[in-house]
């Protein structure tokens, strides 16, 4: 955190000054470790074993927050008799389909209170829904996300045992699942000595409970794994058991990487989501608006209003053309029916299936793993539009990339037409970023952008305008969605810049009276309201741009609610109803945050209560209640269908209802816990340009991780081009331990070559004790290598690209790549140049028993190349 979110880290330092204990769990020693009270270096890729060890410690020693766990979680729910745990099946859960490498989740369900589906408003519909969801293809299409952040529907209310003693309660299932994650096993798997582990366990549990809370902070070090979603699940289970969610000083803080990466998820340019985590309609599952909303029909919680959110979105997009008769133009929405995510697209580009590509402030040939594969993708397009501040590598791949040097690419063979469109910087346009705490902050414009540089708002508005002009008068039904689109944003200035405030107001939503709505509770499913992103509804309440509020922090209390605006409803801590006990009283004076004021008959506190203001803590939903009215007064997790935090996920997480330790896809260690080595549901993308290093291969004997430096920014387009930052961190280096340096003859300050089945790269060697070899109980020594990934061939400071070394394997829940852990070889000296580099890497592939990585023209399959398209070989 001190490295990558440096100014945010001031609050950790403040906490330390006030007596908080800071623990840093990381394979590397960083600037965070330097400030921490305890640094725990663990073997990369083993966090589930470590966190699982903590869960076991909490359960075995009865250190969980009992009242919280019983009242606010699904600990008391009974799991179906058909469920079999990974403990009993060698690392697989019941329902595994080895043909598709997917799970059928039906055996993971709860044991219903009554016969199945009787709790649902629409038993037939729910059954049909279940059947559809069992289709393996739909499972692959992000069922977890497709259900929205409320999680998937659960078929029926579970049987409960409030004593938590029944062997099939979630609580007991959890206890058995983690029983073998002992301190000794943690030592065996993670290489963390039991003393260090127990120190962490003591500090975490001593600082949790009524009077104290513990916070966990993570970043892409957890998400970029083949079990990334499960890493976070493990921490959620731990934090929920300790009663650390929804309370001040608690929580799990996901530190997002970049200025508005949170915003890019909320108002997503992601294939499987619409704004506000509404799923993108699926061809098989969502043939009509009714299908689309079916899973919300009988659902409790705020997702029960899905229809109002969706109809309001359709009204925002298609205005008067969206009517009750035409399902509010639901069929104007295109449908997805598989994994259409970024890496699949690159594969499709290489195979010639995609003609055109827009890169809008993104530099994939450096920032994505496997740069070579990315460049081959770009080389097989008809056209590419790059919008950026500088001529980044993704714009110059056709004449400057490493593959030009190896002869795999040449300008003369690349048909891709490239448009470089200069972009306006953050200071030259207005609009909002959403930072990592869901806080929207408005930026005022300082000056006009220079020359042809324009905002992306300008570019897409005018592109849309031109497209609509071209198609005007068309009678082709496929053009209707474009022609019916509401696209009349007022423009201003000589550049005809559209008004960002107007767009923000559309995102906020407008009521039947034509005024900005004050929040999503006002949204209706009858077409009388419009709203571009329901969770952002309220950002323009009272016709005021709330994100532009800037009351100085020193004039406000600790929550500083009048600086910017956080979704939803300007709440700064989510699920803060959990900061009070079931009766609505603060758990303790010290941790008071939001509570029930009996006299006033409403919730109050220092933050906006994450609950309807007047819903009493003893409210019991009447029979037939729906949406938020079906959530009881003591159920704080209002976005979940049952108002409870899920220690066990009966559906929706595609690789298992409980987190389980698997080794990374590329590991030098055998899984000590299960026969199953790696996550059985990993997504692979195969081709000569994306070979995988076999696990346990002596050819690739070392583990590698990648990371960022304080002084640079992701793929470097905004930092390697600047003199100060380039001076601060002038060249690409790899960090290795003195032991590894001795083993491989690496010399500090000289070059080393790293090799994988993808390619070989060179970097300056930094020999440092900050990297430590991990000694496992078995006697095996695991050497770990660290590489910052900012560099490439352009800019002021240049070097090989760390990401070129990495391959692409994906977490099946999120389609995020595992690039925080992989394997490689390292040897002293510089890498071979030109075609010799290809020979060199091919030799490694051969020795490791991996298929050839040779490609034909522009990276296409050699076979296709021989069949008449000319070959480079």
């Amino acid at each position: 955190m001190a490295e990558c979110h440096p100014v945010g880290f001031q609050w950790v330092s403040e906490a330390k000054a006030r007596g908080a204990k800071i623990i840093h769990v990381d394979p590397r020693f960083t600037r965070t470790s330097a400030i921490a009270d305890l640094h725990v270096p663990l073997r990369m890729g083993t966090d589930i074993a470590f966190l699982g060890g903590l869960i076991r410690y909490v359960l075995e020693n009865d250190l969980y927050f009992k009242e919280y766990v019983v009242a606010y979680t699904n600990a008391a729910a009974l799991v179906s008799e058909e469920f079999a745990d990974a403990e009993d099946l060698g690392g697989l859960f019941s329902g595994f389909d080895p043909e598709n490498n997917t799970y059928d989740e039906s055996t993971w369900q709860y044991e219903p209170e009554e016969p199945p589906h009787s709790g649902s408003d629409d038993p037939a519909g729910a059954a049909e829904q279940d059947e559809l969801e069992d289709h393996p293809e739909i499972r692959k299409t992000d069922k977890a996300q497709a259900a929205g952040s409320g999680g998937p529907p659960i078929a029926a209310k579970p049987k409960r045992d409030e004593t938590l003693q029944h062997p099939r309660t979630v609580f007991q299932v959890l206890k058995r699942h983690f029983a073998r994650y002992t301190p000794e096993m943690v030592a065996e798997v993670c290489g963390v000595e039991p003393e260090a582990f127990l120190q962490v366990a003591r500090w975490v549990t001593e600082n949790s409970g009524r009077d104290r809370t513990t916070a966990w902070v993570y970043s892409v070090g957890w998400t970029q794994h083949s079990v990334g979603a499960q890493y976070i699940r493990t921490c959620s289970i731990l934090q929920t058991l300790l009663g650390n969610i929804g309370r001040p000083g608690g929580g799990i803080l996901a530190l997002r990487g970049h200025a508005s990466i949170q915003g890019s998820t909320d108002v997503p340019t992601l294939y499987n989501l619409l704004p506000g985590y509404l799923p993108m309609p699926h061809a098989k599952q969502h043939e009509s608006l009714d299908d689309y909303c079916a899973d919300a029909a009988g659902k409790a919680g705020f997702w029960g209003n899905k229809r109002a959110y969706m109809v309001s979105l359709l009204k925002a997009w298609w205005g008067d053309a969206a009517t009750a008769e035409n399902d509010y133009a639901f069929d104007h929405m295109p449908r997805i029916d598989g994994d259409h995510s970024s890496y699949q697209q690159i594969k499709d580009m290489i195979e010639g299936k995609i003609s055109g590509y827009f890169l809008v402030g993104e530099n994939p040939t450096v920032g994505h793993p496997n740069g070579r594969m990315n460049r081959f993708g770009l080389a097989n397009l008809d056209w590419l539009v790059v919008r950026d501040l500088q001529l980044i590598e993704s714009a110059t791949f056709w004449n400057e990339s490493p593959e030009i040097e190896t002869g795999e690419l040449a300008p003369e063979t690349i048909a891709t037409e490239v448009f470089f469109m200069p972009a306006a910087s953050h200071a030259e346009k207005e609009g909002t970023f959403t930072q990592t705490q869901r806080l929207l902050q408005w930026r005022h414009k300082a000056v006009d952008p220079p020359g042809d540089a324009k905002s992306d708002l300008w570019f897409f508005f005018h592109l849309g305008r031109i497209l609509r002009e071209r198609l005007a008068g068309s009678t082709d039904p496929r053009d209707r969605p474009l022609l019916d689109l509401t696209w009349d944003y007022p423009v201003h200035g000589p550049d005809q810049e559209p008004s960002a405030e107007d767009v923000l107001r559309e995102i906020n939503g407008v009521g039947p009276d034509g005024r900005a709505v004050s929040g999503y509770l006002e949204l209706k499913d009858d077409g009388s309201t419009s709203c571009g992103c329901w969770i952002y509804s309220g950002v323009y309440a009272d016709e005021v741009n709330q994100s532009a509020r800037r009351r100085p922090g020193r004039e406000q209390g600790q929550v500083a609610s009048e600086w910017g605006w956080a979704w939803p409803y300007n709440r700064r801590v989510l699920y803060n109803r959990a900061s009070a006990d079931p009766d609505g009283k603060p758990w303790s004076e010290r941790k008071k945050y939001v509570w029930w004021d009996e006299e006033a008959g409403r919730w109050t506190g220092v933050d906006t209560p994450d609950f309807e203001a007047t819903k009493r803590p003893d409210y019991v939903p009447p029979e037939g209640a729906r949406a938020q009215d079906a959530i009881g007064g003591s159920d704080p997790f209002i976005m979940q269908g049952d108002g409870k935090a899920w220690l066990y996920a009966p559906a929706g997480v595609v690789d298992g209802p409980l987190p389980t330790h698997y080794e990374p896809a590329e590991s030098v260690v055998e899984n000590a816990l299960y026969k199953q080595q790696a996550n059985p549901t990993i997504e692979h993308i195969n081709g000569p340009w994306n070979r995988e290093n076999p696990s346990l291969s002596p050819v690739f004997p070392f583990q590698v991780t990648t990371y960022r430096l304080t002084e640079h920014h992701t793929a470097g387009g905004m930092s390697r081009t600047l003199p100060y930052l380039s001076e601060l961190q002038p060249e690409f280096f790899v960090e290795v331990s003195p032991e590894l340096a001795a083993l491989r003859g690496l010399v500090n300050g000289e070059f080393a070559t790293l090799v994988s089945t993808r390619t070989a790269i060179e970097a300056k060697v930094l020999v440092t004790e900050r990297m430590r070899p991990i000694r496992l109980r078995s006697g095996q020594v695991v050497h770990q290598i660290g590489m910052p990934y900012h560099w490439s061939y352009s800019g002021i400071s240049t070097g090989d690209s760390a990401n070129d070394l990495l391959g692409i394997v994906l977490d099946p829940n999120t389609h995020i790549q595992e690039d925080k852990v992989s394997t490689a070889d390292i040897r002293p000296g510089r890498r071979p140049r030109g075609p010799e580099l290809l020979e060199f890497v091919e030799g490694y592939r051969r020795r490791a028993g991996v298929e050839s990585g040779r490609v034909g023209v522009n990276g296409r399959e050699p076979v296709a190349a021989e069949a008449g398209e000319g070959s480079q070989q």
Partner: protein
Amino acid sequence: MKTWLDAWPVFRQLTGPDPLGRGAAARSKATEGVVSRTATADRVVQSVCPYCAVGCGQRIYVKDEQIVQIEGDPDSPISRGRLCPKGSASKSLVTSPTRVTKVRYRRPYGTEWEDLDLDTAMHMIADRVLEARRKGWQDENDGKRVNRTMGLASLGGATLDNEENYLMKKLYSAMGAIQIENQARI
């Protein structure tokens, strides 16, 4: 004599109220004459750092319609006026001499960049979007209506404003383009 001695910092330090020589004693005429760029700016605009997700407040100082300085905003309860090396370098980001401010065009099989007029480029891109959309169009897939095009794709960065992401998703969806992604996946 007095004036001459007064000009000597050590004399001022020894005789004046600043024995440590860290304040008035160390000030010279030249120092007095120096005025910070922040003091002479025509206006100050409140903004947000474009690098990481902490979201530090920035104050952008503008003189003669040029950005002359970017500093941390002490009003921000998040950052309290601080910026890290990246945030502190943001003036050099926006005023970088290597920033490309003219449209660049590389034709198929071309070996050089060429100039292109912005308006022409916009219309050429629109042509290509329509063509790619047509080429990759699917009314149905696997017997189900999909109404989409697989002919084009998009990848956004994480410095896009919410308003920009919103217009992108809206326009792409209306075109039928579904292969829309963002750094947020990465």
